[in-house]
């Protein structure tokens, strides 16, 4: 589907989702791996078996596993071996990264994000969410990582629909309102809602879908969701670091109650930021390796 060049009235989100054939997808293998790694009875073999169903994905996971970041003593050629050596959790993260990278490294004109802006933003948010979940012990770090990586997936669909048709950047220039309100005003929905609809379509856990839906508006969530709180704080920290700001920039509202609900204190803040930068920069090699593998 090519970009919509004009629309009268409000575009219908359900209709757009139904009729667009080139929407971002996460492979069914990755969804199965996510589900399997959360099951109590999962083993390295069961995860490896699932990954092997997708040879292209397996190849990319192996390239990541063999990247300089992990400094393995010998090259790994077998995904079962990769699961044993790196651990199920790491391989799950690599599979999610390998599956989403081709989408996340696109140019998104409507959000003024040149490649690899969205990828950097998503990866930073994922690693912040993981760090926060780890520190707070209120949410699964793996789920938080996946959630962070997919949080802005709705922007990709909106870019497919609206690149070239709506000047969101221009609309935001000099304005004093929240970016998400502007999106809603222009299109009748915003990227967080689109992300929710997409992740729901893929059958991801409801807690994760809801976290994406309310990532900019946590007070609107109807139930307590630590994953949402992790994502909201991760989004805030990523913007504080100035990563992948695009047209949204700092035009967000941060709700400090999310931090408090996670049981985090004032003193945790600087520690989380300081630890994160060391890990983030160490993992920069993954970006290079991903670019080569894409």
């Amino acid at each position: 589907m090519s970009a919509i060049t004009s629309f009268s009235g409000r575009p219908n989100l359900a209709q757009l989702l139904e009729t667009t054939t080139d929407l971002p997808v996460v492979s069914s293998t990755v969804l199965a791996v996510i589900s399997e790694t959360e099951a109590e009875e999962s083993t390295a073999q069961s995860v490896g078996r699932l990954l092997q169903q997708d040879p292209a994905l397996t190849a990319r996971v192996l390239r990541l596993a063999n990247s300089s970041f992990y400094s393995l003593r010998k090259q790994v050629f077998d995904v079962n071996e990769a699961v044993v050596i790196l651990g199920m959790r790491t391989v799950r993260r690599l599979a999610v990264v390998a599956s989403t990278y081709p989408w996340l490294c696109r140019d998104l004109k409507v959000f003024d994000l040149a490649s690899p802006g969205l990828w950097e933003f998503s990866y930073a948010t994922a690693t912040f969410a993981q760090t926060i979940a780890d520190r707070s012990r209120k949410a699964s770090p793996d789920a938080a990582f996946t959630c962070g990586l997919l949080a802005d997936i709705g922007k990709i669909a909106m870019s497919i629909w609206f690149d070239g048709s709506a000047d969101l950047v221009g609309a935001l220039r000099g304005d004093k309102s929240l970016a998400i309100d502007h999106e809603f005003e222009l299109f009748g929905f915003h990227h967080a809602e689109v992300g929710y609809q997409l992740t729901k379509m893929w059958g991801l856990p409801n807690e994760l879908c809801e976290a994406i839906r309310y990532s900019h508006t946590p007070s609107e969530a109807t139930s307590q969701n630590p994953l949402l709180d992790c994502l909201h704080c991760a989004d805030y920290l990523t913007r504080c670091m100035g990563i992948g700001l695009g047209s949204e920039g700092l035009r967000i509202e941060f709700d400090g109650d999310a931090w408090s609900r996670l049981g985090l204190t004032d003193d945790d803040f600087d520690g989380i930021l300081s630890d994160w930068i060391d890990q983030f920069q160490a993992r920069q090699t993954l970006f290079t390796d991903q670019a080569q593998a894409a």
Partner: protein
Amino acid sequence: MTGSTLVGMAEIKVIQETGSLVCLGLGSCVGICALDPVAKVGGMVHVMLPEAFNGEPGDKPGKFADTALPALIAQMEAAGARKSRLVLAVSGGAQVFKSSTGAAPKLDVGERNGAAVRAAIKKQGLRCKAEDLGGNQGRTVTFKLDTGDIIVKTLSVGEKNLTNLRAA
């Protein structure tokens, strides 16, 4: 060299004679630019946090405002600059558009970074010729050593010349 040198998070970069230094996408971080106009040595540091834990910056002194400036000065002196001749400009320390930090005021890291950088400059007894701190805009800061210009780019304003560090 005539190209641009990127100064990533927590990094300190020093150049001589010619070239540019660039801090891309400063959010709450602060970029400190310094010039010795006589020795033609320029430096930039990308500060992330106000102060090192227990005064120990680890292997990244550029990460913290209180350790970044002494480290920047030391690197510039090693390149031939004199501390007494340094002229500075700072930019960054933005905040998100709206926030309620509740019981955790430290989450206002942009404001804290700005204050810490000002305090560090005062402590070193250096002259800060211009500052562009706070607000709700991400910034890209470019320091052109050849001309001494400090250019700040934001989404709403575009490019503006913050100051010229060579001019008296």
